[in-house]
C-alpha cells in the first residue's frame, strides 16, 4: 500500500514530453543541439522524436523560461566541429527544480499505476 494518495508534488504545469526529455538529457551533462536531439530520441525509446526546427524552438522557449542556458564548451576545441559552430546548453537551477518536480509527478503517477496493476511490479 502507498502511504499517501495525495500527489506529493506542488501542482505546477506539467512539462510537455519533449521539454521533459530535453531537460532530462541536460541533467546528465551539457550538450550541443544535435547531441541533445539524438539523446532525447534514444532516452525516450523513440517515443519523442523532435526534428531540428522544433528542437531549437524548444531550446529557445526553455531559455526564455530560464530553465536552460547557454554554456561554454566543456573542453577546448569542442566549440566547433569540422568548422561548424557548436553551442552547448546547460540545465539551470530553475530547470533542475522544474525537472525534479515533473519527475516526482511522474513517479507518483507510476506508483499509482503499479498499485492499480496497470503496469507490473506493484509496490504493495
Amino acid at each position, binding site marked *: 500500500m502507498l502511504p499517501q494518495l495525495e500527489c506529493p508534488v506542488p501542482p505546477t504545469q506539467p512539462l510537455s514530453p519533449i521539454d521533459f526529455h530535453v531537460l532530462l538529457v541536460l541533467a546528465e551533462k551539457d550538450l*550541443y*543541439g*544535435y547531441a541533445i*536531439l539524438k539523446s532525447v530520441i534514444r532516452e525516450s525509446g523513440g517515443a519523442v522524436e*523532435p*526534428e*531540428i*526546427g*522544433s*528542437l*531549437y*524552438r524548444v*531550446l*529557445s*522557449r526553455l*531559455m*526564455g*523560461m*530560464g530553465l536552460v*542556458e547557454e554554456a561554454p564548451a566543456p573542453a577546448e576545441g569542442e566549440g566547433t*566541429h*569540422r568548422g*561548424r*559552430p*557548436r*553551442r552547448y546548453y546547460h540545465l539551470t537551477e*530553475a530547470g533542475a527544480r522544474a525537472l525534479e518536480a515533473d519527475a516526482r509527478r511522474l513517479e507518483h503517477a507510476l506508483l499509482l499505476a503499479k498499485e492499480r496493476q496497470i503496469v507490473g511490479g506493484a509496490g504493495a
Partner: protein
Amino acid sequence: MKQRPEGRSPGPWHRALLVLALATVPRRFRRRFGSEMRASFADGLEEAAGGRERSRFVWRSVAGVVKAGIAERIRPTMVEENQRKKGAGVRTFMGALAGDVRLALRGMRRKPLFALVVVLTLGLGIGANSAIFSVVNGVLLSPLPFPEADRLLSIRSEWTGRVAELGNMSYLDLRDIATEDEAIEQIAGYSGGSLTLTESGDPVRLEAGRVTDGLLQVFGLAPALGRDIRADEFGADGPRTVVLSHGLWRDRFGMERGVLGRTLTLSGNSYEVVGVAPEGFDFPSGATVWIPRRMVLDGCGRGCHGLNVVARLAPGATAATARAQAAALAARLQEEYRDTNLYKSFNVATLQERMVGDVRIGLFIMLGAVALVLLIACANVATLLLVRGAARSGDTAVRTALGASRGRLIGQSMVESGVQAAIGAAIGVGLAWVIVRILPALAADRIPRIENVRIDGPVLLFTLGSLVTVMLLFGLIPAVTANRGERVSLGTRGEQDGRRERGLRNWLLGAEVALCAVLLVGSGLLVRTLQELYDADLGYETENILRFNLSLPSVSYPTIDDIYAFYSTLEDRIEGLPGVMAAGSAWSAPLASGSASGVVYVEGRPLPTVEEEREAYIHSVTPGWLEVMGIEPLRGRGLTEGDAFGGEPVALINQRFADEHFPDTDPIGQGVSITVDLGYGSPYFRVVGVIGDLRERSLTETSRAGVWVPLGHFGPSALGVSVRTEESAPPVLPAVRGIVASLDPNLPLYRVETMDEAVFQQVAPTRFYVILTVAFALLAALLAAVGLYGVAAFSAARRTREIGLRVALGAGRNGIVRLVLGQGMRPAFWGLAAGLLAAYWASDLLSTLLYGVAPRDPAVFAGAAALLVLVSATAAALPARLASRTDPMVALRSE
C-alpha cells in the same frame, strides 16, 4: 550496408533546401539559431545510413524547420537577449503597450479637435448600438422571469381556412390537450378582466386573472402563502375564492398571515382569500387578484372560446413535440366534434415568442439599422485616419528610418485605434445608459417587456464586441496603409498622396454615403407610414373625446333594464355638463378591448353549412355613442332612444357586412342574426341603417363585418362611456367622476383615456421605430457630411499649390469651386447610386412595418437622394469656397 565516408558534407541541393526552409523562420530566430540548425542538419545527414534514411531525414528536417518558422511567427518563443527571465516577454509587451498608449494619448492631445471627432463618432456609433442591443436583449433574448422559462408555451385555437380568427380556447379542448398531449406537463387557462374591490375607503379597480387551476404550477411556482385556485372551484356554482398578488397583500394587508380566510367584496360578491402569489408573479400582466374562472361547462362546450392557455413542457420535451401532438389531437377532434371543431387547430408557440412576436421583426430591423450607423462611423473614422495618415507620412518615414519595424508601426497604429475606440466605447456606454432611460417613454407601453431593458452584463459584453469590431474595422486600414509611408522619401512632403490611399478613401466615403442612403430611405418609409397612420380614415372621430369604463356588479344591477337605466341616466347627467356635446356608451368600442363574434344568419335564407358560415362582430351601443363618435348612417337611419326597448329589435350593419351578405339586395329591412347568446337566444335584428367601415382593432386593419345593436337588447354590464366635448376633454373628468359617484359610490372609473391617447397608443410602435430610424439616419448623414468635408478640405489643402498655379494661369473662381466640389462629391454620387440600389433591393425587409406606403415609394427615394446630395454638396462646398480664394502668390511660395 555500406558505411558512408566520414565527414561527408551535405550536398548542395540539401543545403539549398534548408536555406529555403530557413527563409520562413523569423529573422531574429534565424540569427540566433540558424547556424546551429545548419550544423545539426549537417550532423544528421552525416549519420544517416543509406539513401532512404537520408532523404527521410532531409524532408523531415526541412518540413520541421518550415513548421517551426511558421509557429515562431505566430507564437514566438524568442525573447530579448537581456531579458531572458520568466515573464520577461509579457513585461516587454506590456511596456511597449504602455508606451504606445502614452504615444496615442499624446497624439490625441496634440490634435484635440481631430481626436474629439473620432472619439465622438465612435461613441455615438457604439452607444446607439449598445442601446438598441439592450432593447433586443431585454425584450427578445433574455428569458422570462420564471423558473425554466424556456419550457413555457402559449397555445391558441385557430380556424384553418376560415376568415374569422379565434385565438382563445374552449375549456373542453384545453382538458383534452392536458390529458392527451404527453409533451405537456401542466396546463392552465385564464382570461383577463377587472374587479372592483370595495373595502374600507374608495373603491379600487383591480386587474384580475380568471383562471383554471394550476396557473402557478405552470410557471413552476408555489404560492407564498396558502394555496392556488383548486380544480373544484371553477364551474358556475363553485365557491368564490381569491388569490392575492404579493404586492396587494403587502400594500393593502400589511403582509398579515391572517389574511387567509378573510372575505373580500369584489364587484359586489364575497370572495374568500385562500392564497398569496409569490413575489413578482405578474401574469397575466398587471393582475393583482386571481379568481376561479366561473364557466358553464355544459353550456356551449367546445364552441365557447374563452380561455387563453399557457402550458409547461414536460422534462425533455420540446415545443416541436408538443406541437406535433397537439396537431394530431386537433385532427382527431375535428373528426369527433364536427360541429365545433371542424376547422379548429392548435397553435403552439413558446410563451416568449407569443409575448414579443409582434415586435421581433421591428427590433431586429432596428438592430440592423443601428449596425449600419456603426459601420458608417467606422468608415468615417477610417477615412479621417487615412487623411491624417497621409498627412503624417513624413512622420512615418522618419520613424521607419530610425529603425521602427513594419510590425511595430502597425502595432502602434492598432494601439492608437484601440485607445480611441475604448474612449468611444466608454462614451457609448454612457450614451446607451441615457437612451435606455428614454426608450420606455417612447415605446408608450406598446413594446412588451420594455421595462426589462437595462445595461447589464450581456449588453456590456456586446459593447466590448463592438469595440473589438470597431478597432479591427477602422484600425486596420490605416495601419496597413500607414506602413507604406516607408516608401515616402524623407525629403519631400508627398504632395500627391498615393493613388491607392486616395482610392481607398473614396471607397470608404462612397460606402458611407451608400449606407446613409439606405438608412434615409428606411426612415423615410417609416415617416410616411406614421403620416399615413395619423391620416387614416378611421370611420369615426377621435378629437376631444374622453372615455372610461364602468363595470356594474350584477348583484346591484341584475337585469338589462337596470343596466340600461343606469347608463341612460348617466349619459343624460353628463350631457348636462357645460362644454359637453354628447355622451354615449358602448360595449366593444374601437381601439378598446372586448368583442364578441358569431356566425351570421339572414332571415329567409337557408342556414349556412359549416363551409358557408361567415362571422360578424356584435356591438352594443346607445344612440348617444354614435353621436359622440360622429358616425352617420350611409343609408337608412341611425339608432334612436325608442329602439332600446319594445318593438322589433333593430340593428345597424357596416358596409363590409352589407357587401358580404347583401351584395345585390338592399340590406335595409332585412333580418339578421348573430349566434351570440344575448341572454334570450339570438334574435333576428331588423337592419335599419348601414354605416361606414370602422377601424376597430387597430388603425391599419381592414374592417370586419359588424352589427351594432341598441343597448337594451344586448348589453354586458361593463361598458365604455364616451364623452365628446367642445374643447379639450380632460377638464370635464372631475365633474364626470362626481356624477358617477353620485349615482353609485362603489363604481370606480377605469381605463380612463382620450381617444387621441388611444390612437397614440396604436401608433406608438411605429413612432418608436420612426424616432429611432430618423435619429440613426440623421446621425449617419451627419457622419457622412463630416467625412466628406474632412476629405474635401484635406484634398484642397494638399492641392493648394496646384490651385494657386491654376489661379495664376487665369482659372476663374467658379472653375476652382467646380474642381474641388466635383472631386469632393464624386464618391458621394457613386455611393448614392449604390445606396439607392441597395435600398431598392432591401426595402422589402421593412414591409411588415409599413402601412399605406409602398416599400419602393419613388417620392421617398427621391427625397432621400435629394437630402444626401444637399448634405454632401454642403460638406464639399465649404472647402471649395476656401480653395477658390487661394492667393496664387501665397500658394506658390508655400513650398
